[in-house]
């Protein structure tokens, strides 16, 4: 064999190796980004659970002071029960939405009870709840950022060549009423 043939064979092998490397890179990249979406979802879940777990403590603290607001307190407890007993994701989301609203009105009503608002326990609960609400918002934002990164890779060339029939993920959208931040301080 002459030199040219060797060079040709070498070039073919090199091109093949580069192609394999690119494939491995994109395969892993898509996997990593897809895992990040799963992780981002579980982050939201963790925060929602923490919020539901605060409810019994909150009810316990508030009960003594807000005797005339039984209805509002009950709404909070009920929406938590709905979340805990939810069978489908749809039910769960509905429960979370109800809890958001119930908590908001409970805290709005608490304005009328200065003694309650002055108690250390209530202040701490309020801060925890504020914190969790903003963590939920940030976790959603990170979820959507992760979805964006993933969708960008699998829908643009060359990533789309390696996507293997994967379809873009859905973004999390929030309803209009939820868009307003839970303002418990006035």
């Amino acid at each position: 064999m002459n030199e040219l043939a060797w060079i040709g064979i070498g070039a073919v092998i090199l091109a093949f190796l580069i192609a394999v490397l690119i494939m491995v890179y994109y395969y892993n990249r898509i996997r990593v980004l897809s895992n990040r979406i799963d992780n981002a979802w579980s982050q939201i879940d963790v925060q929602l659970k923490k919020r539901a777990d605060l409810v019994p403590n909150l009810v316990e603290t508030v009960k003594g002071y807000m005797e005339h607001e039984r209805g509002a307190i009950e709404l909070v407890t009920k929406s938590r029960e709905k979340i805990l007993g939810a069978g489908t994701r749809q039910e769960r989301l509905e429960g979370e939405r109800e809890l958001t609203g119930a908590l908001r009105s409970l805290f709005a009503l608490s304005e009328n009870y200065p003694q309650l608002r002055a108690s250390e326990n209530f202040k701490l609960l309020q801060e925890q709840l504020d914190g969790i609400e903003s963590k939920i918002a940030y976790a959603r934002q990170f979820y959507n950022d992760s979805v964006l990164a993933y969708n960008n890779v699998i829908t643009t060339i060359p990533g789309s060549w390696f996507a293997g029939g994967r379809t873009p993920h859905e973004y999390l959208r929030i309803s209009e009423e939820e868009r307003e931040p839970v303002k418990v301080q006035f």
Partner: protein
Amino acid sequence: MSKLSFFDEISRNKRDSLILAVVVLLVLGALAYVIAQLLFARYTALFFVTALAFILPYIYGTYTYGDQVVLSAANAVPADPQRNAYLVNTVEGLSIAAGIPPPKAYIIENDEINAFATGKDPQHASIAVTTGALQHLRRDELEGVVGHEISHIRNYDTRFMTAVAVMVGLVTILSHGLLRSFWFAGSGRRSERDRDRVGILIVVGMILAIVAPVVVRLVQLAVSRRRELLADSSSAELTRYPEGLASALEKILKMNKGKMDVSEGMSHLFFVDPNKHPLDSLFATHPPLEKRIQILRSM
């Protein structure tokens, strides 16, 4: 969106750290050589080995435990998850937004509004905030400040800054050592030729000892100012609300007196310069507050 550019920033920071480390090591080598020639002309090799035996553990130690040193030098104490829930929640929230593990939160007892981040990577990071900031800043303002620090961590600025602080410290120490060794170099009996050699060495050494710390410091400052602006815009991307950070900076402009009593070697770590300088632009670790506010407001 700018996701890709963050990866660029991160690899650029890692590369910058490496270049800086090599340059500073060369400067250190030159300093050490001159000292060796002045003091122990016959045992230069031995001196080098001994010096390395001290310097390498020092570099490793400060790189690994530098965050602890910085935190204790700033009198930062760990935040209590109950009493400082406000801060701990904010730090956790923004770390979720940035997709990094939550850094440890610390508190500095001080009336000025300020904060800093440290740690060699996002897994070993800490954020310290002054009590003044917790008192005076609203939630959206505090989120802006914490977002700025979280960005420093995610972009590996904190690693770079730790490396820089270690290197600047070493150069300063050796320059002092060099200036000191002139004292001993002059003494003792020497031959005519020896005296000439020592004369040249002293001149070279003088220049090195004076120039090296200044050059290293200027590099540190230029890099620091660029990274501050980047962290501001990253913070706005995390909170999706540049106005929070802008109004925090405005409060700082009004309230801070620039008297935090922080050593010069650490001032570049902070959110805003803890000390006020007369020679502002060239030796400033941070861009002017007015400029940072203006950039945020134009986003």
